[in-house]
């Protein structure tokens, strides 16, 4: 008997067509180590990271690939670094549009320009713009490559989870497919099923926060235009197409245009192509030829679940937290969730680390979500002031920003995503006062050029003990964890980023390339203690 699994959206790429699994004919439900629900960027990245770390993982998605439309667009340097660890970054970089320059306008005045280009000595740029379906496709390509090398990843398209039943040692799932329903079990379930998360709703878990009373129209237009590859943002634009407007370049001659429409609008009417074209015409001028590629009206909320771990169910990405788009903190923060979760879950599944290590996923990523919600809320309050006095101060800042550089530091059209530092995490060990603050325990390791290649490409398979200016053992082990040694001679970048005022340094680095602890000498007992702490054994 055939069952229909209706598509909620059109596919850009059909990546994993439905195929019947032996699980569907099993007399008792088959139990898997890890099941991921959701085939968006976060679900795919989770399956990829777990599989590459040797954890058998099954991904269930009610679709068969990547949905159409650009949606997530700006992918940050840290995301690219994580994707590089996952073997997916090179095609993203080749296809994506790299950008560093931004311009901010008020009415018809250019207020100032800014440059996001980080200091030299990094493998990846500050940002690339890449349509979400391409990001997903490249992750899928990396999954296929990992599978070919033996990574135990299985993707099941048109597999819709209809019920979830948590138990003491597993989670049971009722799954619907074109061949009818079946049951399957997961020792660990990772919910990557998006902001409307059906799993979250089935479990009756809350998702509270703040609704912003504003509508934004996205118009992705295709045109051969010679606008530079920059992010242009207008407050109260002279062309009156919205209360604010954004212009951003994407690959394939597509441009993202974003108009702020206000709260009381007629959604259906605003989505009429003629009306959208009138707004775009006013912005681009009458002589520009373009076609509408993809349009959508969205409202947004800043909210998160109280906890991201609920027993054997772990929430990651939009299912756990949601922010406004200003600052590119949606998909980028979800990828950081994956980065944080995969190694921890792998150690727990292997029996090396206690289950409470997963509580540090909750603590560290709730901290990250709070930071993103704070930044995103502030940007939104600046872009869409909620009271007359708030608007007066906003416009006073804009009035000063053209001539007074200090006011530009207050202008907020989105504080663009930076990786989170896990200050105060229970996993953090010793710090050294003479070393730079940017590499304190909890920080993501900044990249640096080495004689051959890049520092980050040498980190992240497991735990690393990095010696700078001194030799560390090539291999150590403690608490069931292998520790790879990396001895480096100081370079100007390594001195600036890792040594500071210290002559030499030993860094214990987690599998997600975050610093666990650091010292100015090698003390194997101290390293073993920090390692125990970093895997939740202390």
């Amino acid at each position: 008997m055939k069952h229909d699994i209706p598509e909620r959206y059109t596919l850009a790429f059909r990546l994993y067509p439905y195929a019947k699994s032996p699980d569907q004919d099993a007399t008792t439900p088959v139990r898997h180590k890890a099941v991921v629900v959701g085939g968006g960027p976060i679900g795919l990245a989770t399956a990829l990271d777990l599989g590459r770390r040797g954890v058998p993982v099954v991904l269930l998605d009610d679709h068969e690939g990547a949905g159409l439309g650009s949606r997530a667009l700006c992918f940050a340097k840290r995301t690219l670094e994580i994707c590089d660890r996952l073997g997916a970054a090179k095609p993203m970089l080749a296809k994506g549009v790299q950008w560093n320059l931004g311009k901010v306008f008020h009415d018809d005045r250019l207020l100032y320009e800014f440059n996001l280009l980080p200091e030299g000595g990094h493998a990846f740029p500050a940002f690339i713009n890449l349509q979400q379906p391409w990001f997903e496709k490249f992750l899928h390509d990396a999954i296929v490559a990992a599978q070919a090398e033996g990574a135990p990843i299985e993707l099941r398209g048109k597999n819709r989870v209809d019920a979830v039943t948590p138990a003491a040692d597993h989670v049971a799932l009722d799954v619907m497919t074109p061949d009818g329903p079946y049951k399957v079990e997961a020792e660990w379930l990772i919910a990557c099923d998006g902001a409307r998360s059906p799993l979250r709703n089935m479990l009756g878990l809350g998702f509270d926060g703040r609704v912003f009373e504003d509508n934004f129209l996205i118009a992705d237009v295709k045109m051969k235009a010679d606008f530079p590859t920059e992010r242009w943002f207008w407050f109260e634009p002279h062309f009156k197409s919205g209360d604010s407007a954004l212009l951003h370049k994407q690959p394939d001659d597509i441009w993202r245009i974003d108009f702020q429409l206000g709260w009381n609008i007629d959604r259906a009417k605003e989505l009429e192509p003629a009306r959208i074209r009138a707004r775009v015409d006013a912005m681009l001028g009458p002589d520009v030829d373009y076609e509408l590629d993809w349009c959508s009206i969205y409202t947004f909320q800043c909210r998160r679940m109280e906890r991201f771990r609920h027993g054997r169910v772990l929430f990651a990405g939009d299912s756990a937290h949601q922010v406004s788009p200003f600052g590119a903190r949606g998909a980028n923060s979800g990828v950081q969730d994956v980065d944080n979760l995969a190694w921890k879950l792998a150690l727990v599944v292997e029996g090396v680390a206690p289950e409470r290590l997963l509580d540090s996923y909750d603590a560290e990523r709730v901290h990250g979500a709070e930071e993103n919600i704070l930044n995103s809320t502030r940007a939104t309050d600046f872009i869409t002031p909620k009271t007359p006095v708030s608007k007066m101060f906003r416009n006073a800042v804009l009035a000063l920003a053209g001539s007074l550089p200090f006011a530009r530091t207050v202008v907020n059209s989105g504080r663009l995503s930076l990786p989170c530092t896990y200050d105060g995490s229970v996993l953090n060990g010793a710090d050294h006062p003479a070393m730079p603050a940017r590499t304190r325990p909890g920080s993501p390791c900044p990249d640096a050029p080495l004689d051959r290649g890049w520092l980050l490409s040498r980190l992240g398979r497991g735990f690393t003990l990095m010696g700078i200016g001194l030799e560390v053992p090539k291999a150590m082990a403690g608490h069931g964890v292998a520790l790879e040694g990396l001895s480096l001679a100081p370079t100007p970048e390594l001195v600036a980023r890792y040594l500071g005022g210290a002559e030499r340094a030993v860094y214990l680095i987690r599998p997600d390339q975050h610093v666990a602890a650091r010292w100015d000498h090698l003390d194997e007992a101290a390293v073993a203690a920090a390692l125990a702490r970093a895997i939740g054994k202390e």
Partner: protein
Amino acid sequence: MLITTPNLTRPDESYARLIATHEGLSEAESHALNARLILILMNHIGDEAVLAEAILLARDPSAV
């Protein structure tokens, strides 16, 4: 730490200048000017802790 003891070098002149600069402005223009002035002075002070004290004090002048 926020200075709340007398600190103006020429109190009468400074106050008169503040009032005079609003002459001829509509109420909305005056509010906008005040907003710009606050931002400029905030930047001059700079220190977040001092600003926090000043903002609290402005909201509740009895809380010295």
